[in-house]
């Protein structure tokens, strides 16, 4: 996928003026946060589970190589194959090779953000294999030639009208504006595809080392049809998703749906352990797990290791006021919101994605709701540190900071500086008590007045009193 993160600011401006998008984003704000809060309130142990989940993820990451070995051993014992892919390109080619070996013409796909990360659809299409997205949201996006704006609700940036229009154009049926009717249309259209597909590709929410299983957590059932009906099932996932045992997976399952959609549990939690067994009447004949690294192993042992705890629940973006204002596509790559602002620079380079970790007020809401307690603001600050070190932050910011800190490191000068600024602002404001315009402060005064100082600086007044 093309990286458009350098255009974040322009994209944000456009997004803020896009009435349709703003209407769609209103649905997000009205939905997920309240539902999560209600689900959390029903489970008194929720915060204790978060602590355990954080600690368990830390344990897993400290032993990541060993759990991955165990996972591979058990997948193989189940009759499946694990493919190790260092880069996105390795992963794409591996998947294409499996499809070609099956002579596959069409593949159905369950929702997978890793497949977005590696740009799988475009690649398959360019090489003669047609991917068919089967998750309702992803299906809508594929019809529109669009990309996900959210890691759980991929079409959250669209309105009912957008969907009705896309379906009317592609399905050649009378237009309906009833979401129930639209969903039935998609159901009917995709039934044929599920059966016709040669290969089914899904993601995985977790990889279970103990049993060599993968699990998908879904509500629609499309992932299950995708992986059960074709002759070959390919799971594309990333290395940090491994967990030791079914019991350990359970800890994360208790947190995942509640954090994501506020559900007690997703409707379908499906464990897959290899291809069909002797005597089985259905199920895939081949089972492949394509494990993607794509920069993750480089995060191990660094400050960013904490980001590898992420279970992709989307709570951080659901609660982020910046995401809520501009939507996911503004972020310009696959992963939006706070988790994306930490991951994207790792995957596409801080020189391309520096605007993302800066696009946060550090309000801390993301960290407050994260089920595995990732300190997202701290990790965004980590990227700001790298950016500053590498002289990537804008010159104006750098010089401005140096100028300011020259004074801040000299108390007497600082007091003089504050006193002068205070005097100028009061002079400019006069009796009005505020400024509507101020040179060099357009970022502030374009949208709001600047309250003027109410009097001389505190230091001036305090010294005068205590002289």
């Amino acid at each position: 996928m093309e990286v458009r993160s350098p255009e974040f600011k322009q994209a944000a401006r456009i997004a803020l003026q896009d009435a349709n998008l703003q209407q769609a984003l209103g649905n997000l704000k009205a939905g997920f946060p309240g539902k999560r809060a209600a689900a959390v309130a029903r489970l008194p142990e929720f915060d204790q589970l978060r602590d355990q989940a954080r600690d368990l993820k830390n344990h897993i990451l400290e032993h990541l190589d060993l759990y991955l070995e165990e996972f591979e051993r058990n997948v193989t014992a189940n009759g499946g194959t694990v493919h190790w892919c260092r880069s996105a390109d390795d992963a794409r080619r591996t998947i294409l090779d499996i499809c070609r070996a099956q002579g596959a013409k069409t593949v159905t796909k369950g929702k997978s953000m890793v497949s977005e990360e590696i740009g799988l659809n475009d690649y398959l299409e360019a090489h003669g294999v047609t991917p068919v997205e089967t998750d309702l949201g992803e299906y809508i996006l594929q019809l529109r030639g669009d990309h996900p704006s959210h890691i759980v609700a991929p079409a959250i940036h669209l309105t009912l009208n957008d969907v009705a229009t896309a379906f009317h154009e592609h399905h050649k049926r009378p237009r309906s504006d009833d979401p129930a009717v639209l969903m039935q249309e998609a159901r009917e259209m995709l039934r044929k595809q599920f059966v016709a597909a040669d290969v089914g590709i899904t993601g995985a929410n977790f990889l279970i080392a103990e049993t060599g299983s993968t699990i998908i957590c879904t509500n629609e059932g499309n992932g299950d049809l995708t992986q059960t009906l074709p002759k070959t099932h390919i799971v594309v996932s990333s290395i940090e998703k491994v967990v030791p045992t079914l019991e350990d997976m359970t800890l994360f399952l208790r947190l995942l749906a509640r954090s994501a959609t506020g559900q007690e549990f997703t409707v379908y939690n499906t464990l897959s352990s290899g291809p069909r067994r002797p005597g089985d009447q259905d199920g895939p004949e081949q089972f492949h797990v394509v494990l993607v690294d794509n920069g993750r192993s480089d995060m191990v042992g660094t400050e960013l290791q904490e980001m590898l705890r992420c279970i992709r629940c989307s709570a951080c973006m659901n609660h982020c006021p910046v995401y809520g204002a501009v939507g996911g596509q503004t972020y310009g790559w696959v992963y939006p919101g706070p988790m994306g602002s930490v991951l994207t620079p790792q995957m596409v380079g801080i020189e391309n994605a520096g605007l993302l970790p800066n696009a946060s007020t550090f309000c801390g809401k993301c960290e407050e709701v994260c089920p595995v307690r990732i300190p997202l603001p701290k990790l965004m600050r980590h990227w700001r540190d790298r950016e500053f070190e590498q002289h990537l932050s804008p010159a104006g910011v750098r010089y401005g900071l140096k100028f300011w800190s020259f004074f801040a490191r000299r108390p007497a000068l600082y007091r003089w500086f504050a006193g002068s600024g205070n005097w100028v602002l009061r002079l400019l404001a006069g009796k009005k008590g505020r400024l509507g315009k101020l040179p060099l402060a357009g970022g502030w005064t374009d949208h709001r007045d600047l309250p003027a100082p109410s009097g001389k600086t505190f230091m001036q007044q305090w010294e005068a009193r205590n002289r």
Partner: protein
Amino acid sequence: MSKAEIFNRIRSGLRVQASDDVRRAAVRARLDARAANLIPQRAQLPTAQRLKLFIDMAIESAAELVELQHRSELAGAVESWLADNGIDQLVMASDANLTDLAWSGNGLVREQRPAEVGDAASLTNAFCGIAETGTLMLYSGSDSPTTLNFLPDTHLVVLAASTIVGPYEDAWQKLRQATGGQMPRTVNLITGPSRSADIEQRLQMGAHGPRRLVIFLLHDE
């Protein structure tokens, strides 16, 4: 090639020493112990309350519930449910405890096979119920094709009340015992019928899986 590179990077990131016996032992211990993490109080109720919780949570998840005292009532109950809903075709799992029921044979085409597109209803056993969230556990085998759980418009599931456990952890234990520690190819945890909120966050039932999930709960088993 890629595998070695990935593992080298992980190990150098973790500053793993040449001998990592301590790490290996920690991993082995965790894998072997299969220890439960924190289990919520809600999942640890006495039997009667556990059953009630299962029923409440299943209904909350939009599953439908038919309560029966004895298995002898099951065939009749399934047949009349289907008749009431205008369904005259049923694909079912070939477990003996389903096929040996006293089916009347009136007006209902019953087949034992994997599901196909267009099937109206399926009937399967559930391996157990999980009270914590009103969840059913099913697994695949030669008698129970997975497609039965997903393709038909309606999924009818038989659940013995005695198999309802509190937390998921108990279900894993039960599963390991039943299968001799070998994971079945597919294990399905199912909580209500299929749904999607991908259009404007408005919840619609019946996305790609069954539109209706009906649990026949047998109290005497």
